[in-house]
């Protein structure tokens, strides 16, 4: 079972690092550290877990609804309903004060607990867990592979829902119904509808599709806690020559990035490969933070995890990492355009996990 494999890996790594216990924090936004240690996908409130060297895990949650959910989803761990989360966990930490303990992610720990880190011998071990989160077990990659297949299926549903007059949130509603019926508990998704006025993607605002609009989305279903992302753009009606030209550039950039992915390169190498294509076409300006955030990122128990694919990120890319390569940015003639595929890094290159054609799709106008 994937959760047991992860926990064994975590406790083995703790032993190697001389840690007696780990304190991990999570909420519905930043849930990956908590999920790694407990396998609990928290939705409401906040959770803290203490993982002991012998593999015993105590999960503290401050919502009674979440305590019920944790007991159902994670029968192998101890769940404690702690309405006063900070006090309850602080009391547990007081009882462990002679032990060497790490915490992750330290920056999100409740202030009151973090303020006593020195006294309680708690060290910041965020990067320690980050390494485990980034370089995945085979079973983790298999889960992401499943999620990627559902990303492909979900995009078909999204495309079928896109037609003139429909609102952005209605497209997402259709995708979500499909996902809930097909083993997808969660989904990260943002959307953009329109033309040159669209500078990025965001949650739905109620904007309705008009003929000729480009519809962009970043769709990220979650299976067994693991997210896989796909980015595609469609046009409502026939694409213009400028839209087709822009898409060809995006595709060249994405494929240059994917061709660079292999064990031993850096995140910067991948970003540079993508951005060089833009620069060659006189579009280098649109690879900057004024127009785009990242040129891809890691995926796993978090939809947008480390490493960020940027030219100033020197993180080594290792076999076992899973990334999305997406040269998403603004084009002055057509607006914000996206294209991205999920890949699993191998020793010699990468396995592309998403299978949706790399086309600028057209739906009936």
């Amino acid at each position, binding site marked *: 079972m994937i959760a047991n494999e992860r926990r064994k890996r975590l406790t083995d790594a703790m032993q190697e690092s001389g840690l007696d216990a780990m304190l991990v924090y999570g909420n519905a936004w930043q849930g990956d550290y908590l999920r790694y240690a407990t396998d609990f996908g928290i939705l409401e409130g906040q959770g803290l877990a203490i993982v002991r060297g012998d593999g015993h895990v105590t999960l503290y949650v401050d919502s009674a*609804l979440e305590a019920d959910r944790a007991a159902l989803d994670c029968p192998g761990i101890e769940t404690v309903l702690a309405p006063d989360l900070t006090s309850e966990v602080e009391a547990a930490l007081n009882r462990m004060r002679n032990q060497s303990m790490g915490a992750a992610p330290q920056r999100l720990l409740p*202030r009151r607990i973090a303020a006593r880190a020195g006294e309680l011998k708690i060290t910041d071990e965020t990067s320690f867990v980050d390494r485990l989160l980034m370089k995945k077990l085979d079973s983790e990659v298999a889960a992401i592979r499943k999620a990627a297949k559902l990303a492909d299926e979900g995009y078909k549903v999204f495309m079928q829902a896109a037609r003139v007059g429909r609102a952005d949130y209605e497209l997402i509603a259709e995708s*979500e119904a499909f996902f809930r019926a097909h083993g997808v508990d969660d989904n990260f998704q943002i959307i953009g509808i329109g033309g040159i006025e669209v500078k990025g993607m*965001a949650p*739905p605002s109620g904007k309705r599709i008009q003929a000729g609009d480009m519809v962009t989305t970043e769709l990220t279903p979650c299976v067994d806690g693991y997210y896989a992302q796909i980015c595609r753009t469609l046009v409502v009606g026939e694409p213009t020559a400028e839209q087709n030209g822009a898409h060809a550039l995006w595709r060249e950039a994405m494929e240059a990035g994917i061709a660079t992915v292999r064990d031993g390169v850096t995140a910067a190498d991948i970003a540079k490969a993508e951005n060089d294509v833009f620069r060659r076409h006189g579009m280098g300006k649109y690879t900057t933070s004024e127009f785009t955030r990242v040129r891809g990122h890691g995926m796993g128990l978090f939809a947008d995890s480390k490493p960020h694919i940027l030219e100033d990120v020197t993180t080594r890319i290792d076999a076992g990492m899973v990334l999305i390569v997406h040269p998403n940015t603004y084009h002055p003639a057509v607006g914000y355009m996206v294209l991205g595929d999920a890949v699993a890094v191998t020793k010699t290159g990468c396995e592309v996990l998403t299978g949706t054609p790399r086309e600028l799709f057209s739906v009936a106008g």
Partner: protein
Amino acid sequence: MRRGLMGWNAEELPVAAIEARLARLRAAMQGAGLDAFIVYTNNTRPSAVAWLTGFTPYWSDALLLVSKSGAPVFATALSKRVSEWIRTTDPVSEIVNTPQPGKLMGERLAKDKAKRVGVLEYDMLPAGLAHDVETAAPAVEWSDGTAMFAALRREVDEPERKLLAKADAIAVAALREAESGKAKDAGTLAGLIEQSARLAGAEEAYIAVAPDLAADRRLNRTSQPTPLAERFAVRASIAYKGCWVRRSRTFATDSANADAWLDRVADSIEAGKAVAEQVAANVKALPNAKLAKYTVESCTGSYPLSALASAPASGQFLVLTVELTIDGAPWLGARPLIAGSR
């Protein structure tokens, strides 16, 4: 992450209503001797900032600083490109994009020579932000402002009542999907209910199912094809424009009497009296029913809904959840209400 309809609408939440809320906070600050007030937000803890500005984060986190006067300062590590979107949900704040929101807040406090500053849920402030704020404003005396803020949230104003009513109408309609017989399994049913809620404009929809209530009363998020038994239950936690409600229903051939009973109980909840006693007294009116469990939730801080231990105030928004055993069979239900509204 939030992926439903998000956006501020002046008709639903007039700027005057937001300014009235800010004025109430500032009056409370003055009473407590506070020069400023800091509120944290992320998508698990959005409610206090949503109440003060209209803003709910779909991702990431942020801090809001309310000083004695002037526009609130909203600082986030989200990039400047996201500011345009933030503005569509928050008509009142000065929006600042900075890699270190805590440092910026501390610097503002230091510049304003703030002496005493309240923080909502101070103990729970994320350590990184807390460190940055405190380091940049070393002279400030910090004060937990949780109780002060909760007092402001005791009575909902008219715009909030309407937004809550809209969220509840979405939840009620969405749960009717379970009556249609279209879904035979829990995952499909969850999808249909969520689809209904999102098509109606829900900002968020958390659907939980107990597929065989006779076997297990606990509800859980699901996307699995678990068959639905003759007696099952569904909970829909629905947000509309930052306002959250919960509705739970038991679906069985004999649940109608208990459903109607819950409506009567919810409509009769009085302010100033313990809800436990009021619920227990009403159980006697339902033949062969035994009270298994009840909970009362409200929105008093950054959480959309959390357990309320005290007797409700007049005009306070609540969600009442009751679990009964009736003639040996389990039944559960939940619905929102305004205390003392009868």
